[in-house]
């Protein structure tokens, strides 16, 4: 929820406009990113995100986390080295006779 001041009698109104709590919104975000949310939950999260800047930031950070974790894949430290490749190809060749 944004850090705007809330009128004394406005809390319930804001809770209703947000449809679900931030905690519930967070629970739906993994399926949201996978586009697996069923109708109802999808609309509830969309309505919450429309009014909640904080959850928007959290969701952006989850998305950024997925992207940067994915960048580990290409790191050369994990790739096969030439000597190992040569040894494995040799095993493959021997299995053919």
């Amino acid at each position, binding site marked *: 929820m944004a850090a705007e001041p809330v009128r004394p009698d406005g809390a319930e109104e804001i809770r209703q406009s947000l449809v679900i*709590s931030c905690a519930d919104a967070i629970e739906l975000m993994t399926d949201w990113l996978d586009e697996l949310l069923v109708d109802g939950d999808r609309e509830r999260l969309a309505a919450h995100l429309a009014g909640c800047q904080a959850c928007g930031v959290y969701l952006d950070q989850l998305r950024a986390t997925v992207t940067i974790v994915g960048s580990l894949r290409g790191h050369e430290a994990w790739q*096969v080295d030439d000597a190992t490749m040569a040894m494995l190809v040799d095993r493959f060749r021997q299995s053919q006779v």
Partner: protein
Amino acid sequence: MTTDVASPSTFDDDRALVAALREGDEDAFRELVARHHGMLRRVASIWVDERVVDEVVQETWTAVITAIHRFEGRSSIKTWLFRILVNQARKRGTRERRSIPFSAAAPRDESPIVDPDRLLHPELGPNYWPAAPATWEGDPEGRLLSSEIRSVLIAAIESLPPAQREVITLRDVEGWDAAETCTAMGISSANQRVLLHRARAAVRGAMEEHHGG
């Protein structure tokens, strides 16, 4: 037959690759190793000691060479390789006295994703952010991933419980989809989602800490 310049591989789908492997085509084998060696090493490192990762992956390739004639194409090559690796790692894990639980039996963790103390709005009450999480400076998408951030990420992933680590490795490092991950690990989609959700939240938390949040 296509002549896609951007894709130099002649083995675009599993079927063509497997057919070539059965013919003893060494280029096909090189392609198979180049594509999947990194994945096998990353997954092996979840289950066995770092000292024996390369050995376990080599044993996996030997098993693959022996078994390729029995591959029936009911699963994708990568999930098939994954399962052979897990069998090799499990054998080794027993020898190394490290237990490898079956993923489906992973303990359930019901604790909240975000610390409840952080979700406490002065007027709206519990379960609402009092303020947005601090935005990340620099290059949050990681296009210019520094070795420092890479270390933070690797440490965060390594500190996860093994089942979470396995799911985030397959989903987000390897880029597998949810269905492939469920098939490979033999878990339900609900279980996969919970494990992924927790793993991502933990890694996000480590990034936040790194950014001084």
